[in-house]
């Protein structure tokens, strides 16, 4: 059967770890100093919901996802795509190339670039000083916003591509006749464009959000979750508990929660895609 190699790989290295994840999340497994792990039931989850640091990282993850994925990448991607539909070819290709370049760059390089951009002696403060606006140490005062904007910089290209494809599929006659009927640009956007691309909006929001939920390297490179735990999203919290504090069982319980959220999103996504499989 030609399908065997893929199935074996997926079972061994994906289904296996997920099943193992579901098992150790219910144990007190530690990295060191323990011969064998024992079953502790829901203790890890109870501990998580009572843990102020965990709740903090849930809130930060929500902020990070809302600001960078839903408000940032999604809206900016749609804006870019619709501006590109009207702009001159040269401006369109240069902008497209630069935005895609930010997307293709390795995650850690992007993290490093935006670290210098937001740092105290960095470019952003230079611009603010030029405009006579107060500068500050962004990575210290507003770390979660800095990493959120970094994620917008890095991830917008995907939304831009999805929306460019979606907008190009709208027949010209539809928008033109609306224009002839006297609909202004906002009315056309609200009553015609958005309803016609609503499936792309759904797909894009879903994929963006999932992508953003699991961002690790970008935040790790910029702030390592700090200062303190003020940019510690769930993946960073999970890593910190499992490795810095050696609590594999607890870290895995957090990972399992993240997986469950991802799985729920996946199910919604599958329903959106239903008729296409």
């Amino acid at each position, binding site marked *: *059967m*030609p*399908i*065997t*190699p*893929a199935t074996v790989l*997926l079972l*061994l290295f*994906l289904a296996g770890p*997920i099943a*193992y*994840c579901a098992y150790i999340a219910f144990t007190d*497994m530690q990295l060191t100093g323990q011969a064998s792990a024992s079953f502790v039931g829901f203790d890890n989850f109870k501990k998580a919901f009572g843990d102020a640091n965990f709740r903090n990282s849930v809130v930060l993850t929500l902020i990070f996802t809302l600001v960078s994925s839903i408000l940032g990448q999604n809206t900016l991607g749609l804006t*870019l795509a619709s*501006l*590109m539909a*009207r702009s*001159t070819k040269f*401006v369109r290709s240069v*902008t*497209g190339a630069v935005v895609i370049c930010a997307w*293709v*760059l*390795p*995650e*850690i*390089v992007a993290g*490093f*670039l935006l670290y*210098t*951009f937001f740092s105290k*002696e960095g*470019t952003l403060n230079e611009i603010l000083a030029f405009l006579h606006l107060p500068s500050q140490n962004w990575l210290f005062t507003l770390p979660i916003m800095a990493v959120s904007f970094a994620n917008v910089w890095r991830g917008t290209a995907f939304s831009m*591509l999805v929306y*460019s*494809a979606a907008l190009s599929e709208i027949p010209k006659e539809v928008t033109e006749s*609306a224009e002839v*009927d*006297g*609909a*202004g640009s906002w009315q056309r956007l609200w009553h015609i464009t958005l309803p016609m691309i609503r499936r792309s909006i759904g*797909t894009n929001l*879903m994929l963006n959000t*999932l992508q953003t939920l*699991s*961002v*690790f*390297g970008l935040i790790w490179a910029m702030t390592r979750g700090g200062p303190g735990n003020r940019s510690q999203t769930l993946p960073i919290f*999970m890593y910190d508990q*499992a490795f810095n504090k050696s609590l*594999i069982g607890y870290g*895995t319980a957090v*990972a399992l929660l993240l997986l469950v*959220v*991802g*799985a729920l999103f*996946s199910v919604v996504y*599958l329903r959106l*895609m239903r008729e296409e*499989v």
Partner: protein
Amino acid sequence: MAAISEAPAPEAAAGPAPRRPRVRPGSKLSRTTRQRLAADLGLLVILGAFVLPLLWLIFASVDTDPSMKVAPPSGLTADNFSKVLTDEITFTPMLNSMLLCGSATLMTVTAAALAAYPLSRYKARFSRPYLLTILFSTCLPITAVMVPVYALFVQVNLIDTMHGTSFFLATSQLPFAIWLMKNFMDGVPVALEEAAWTDGASWFQALTKVILPLMGPGFAVVTVYSFIQMWGNFFVPFMLLITPEQLPASVSIFTFFGNLGSIAFGELAAFSILYSTPVLLLYILISKRLGGGFTLGGAVKG
């Protein structure tokens, strides 16, 4: 924007109003021009924000005295590049990345092509649930699996091995690769392999001699895209590899600016450029062939 003030009576937009082509000589042309100018201006502003960090990278890499601000170099130098072009800093990590991602990509595309074939060609009972499972797993946050993968790899002695890491990298990319591959394969008409069937070709020959060559650009896209994703992946090798000599560039660059007290920005920028160049070139290669990333965006959409 300018169009809003010009929009006539709002009731026209509310219902299916009769068409009233308004003839206003000259105004149509100038309106499109104005719209184009506004769009260009908007794009240029966004472009400015996107380009600054990239400009910094280029300037700092050739600056004799780079700082964290974006500024034209005070003096041009190639020193930053020559300093990082050593076995320890650049060549070994890049070679490791190559081995790791090259072998993982090979595994991914082979397994994906084999799996996509029956999924695309036969309406077997398992096809639909299999595809749904694949689509489901493309959405799972792989980051969340890393801690249990680490624990599992310790138990089966795969931790800190190149082959173990590339197996996992290959698998993490596999669901999306199968999905993409199947979509491209659907575009090759079955009639073409039927000719091969009648000539007595096996399914494997039909796949390798007829289908894969015919879906050439699609196969290239899956390969290059998988490679780019793995090349940039930081978390997987960061977790699964320990020995410094085995680290790929994505992790070695991190130790570079993580541990040095004062960061050598110029050298780091130079290394970042060297490390990023292969994937940028590969992306240009596939996007040229497919008219921008639009096909990829379309494939993701379904």
